[in-house]
């Protein structure tokens, strides 16, 4: 008797047919009038619904991929140099006008570039320095392409002043702002600057022409 009741209860609450269980319960237990939702039900076949959903999800993915690409591209292209910078990116210098033992300063990308036509004595002097004693050890040969032409950015590596040529304790450059002394190879020798004067990218297009940049 009890086992029969238990079985009925269990089948009535079975999750295999919840709709039937609920509907039978409602008719049996209450006279509550359920609203009729059948008009709202989608009567299209299941396959069509699924295709529609997949199509919409895929379309969103398509637009999302295109949008993501455009965003990334806009961001990356904002980091690349603009046309006005590129137009000024290279400076050509005629070297024939610079006599031996003279400095000239050219402007390159808004920065001063020191070009010195070094004498053989100065080259010798630059090579004889014991680089282990330097703050920023660098061979003179690593700082020049042709030893007689020293090309470097004229910006003090300390706080960005422009050093004065043919001055200082080492015969090279002297920064008046805080007293940094650079030697004839542009290497820091004395004072607060931490690094040697920076050497830009440059090339000799022919014997008489220097291309900075």
């Amino acid at each position, binding site marked *: 008797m009890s086992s029969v009741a238990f079985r009925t209860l269990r089948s009535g609450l079975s999750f295999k047919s919840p709709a039937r269980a609920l509907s039978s319960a409602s008719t049996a237990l209450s006279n509550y009038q359920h609203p009729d939702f059948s008009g709202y039900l989608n009567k299209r076949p299941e396959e069509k619904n*699924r295709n529609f959903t997949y199509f919409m999800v*895929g379309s969103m993915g398509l*637009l999302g991929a*295109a949008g993501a690409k455009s965003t990334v591209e806009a961001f990356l292209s904002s980091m690349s140099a603009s046309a006005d910078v590129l137009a000024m990116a290279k400076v050509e210098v005629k070297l024939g006008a610079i006599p031996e033992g003279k400095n000239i300063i050219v402007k390159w990308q808004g920065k001063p570039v020191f070009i010195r036509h070094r004498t053989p004595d100065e080259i010798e002097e630059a090579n004889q320095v014991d680089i282990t004693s330097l703050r920023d050890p660098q061979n003179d040969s690593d700082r020049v392409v042709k030893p007689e032409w020293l090309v470097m950015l004229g910006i003090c590596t300390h706080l960005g002043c422009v050093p004065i040529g043919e001055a200082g304790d080492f015969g090279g450059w002297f920064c008046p702002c805080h007293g940094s002394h650079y030697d004839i190879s542009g290497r820091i020798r004395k004072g607060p600057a931490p690094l040697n004067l920076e050497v830009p990218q440059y090339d000799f297009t022919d014997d008489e022409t220097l291309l900075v940049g």
Partner: protein
Amino acid sequence: MQISSLFKRNSVYVATILVGAFSFQAFFDVGVNRWYEYHNRGKLWKDVKGKFLEGGDEDEDDDE
């Protein structure tokens, strides 16, 4: 050829979306450009170039 054949495999689905995105970019680009040039017709450089460059044809077809 059912549209559902695109949804059967995820690889086909993703490939379709990305190929679609690639071609969509080109079409969108062309479409936006065409709209922009139509919207700003008469004011673009290619329309006024003749007035500013000597040697260009001096047809003054503005002032409407």
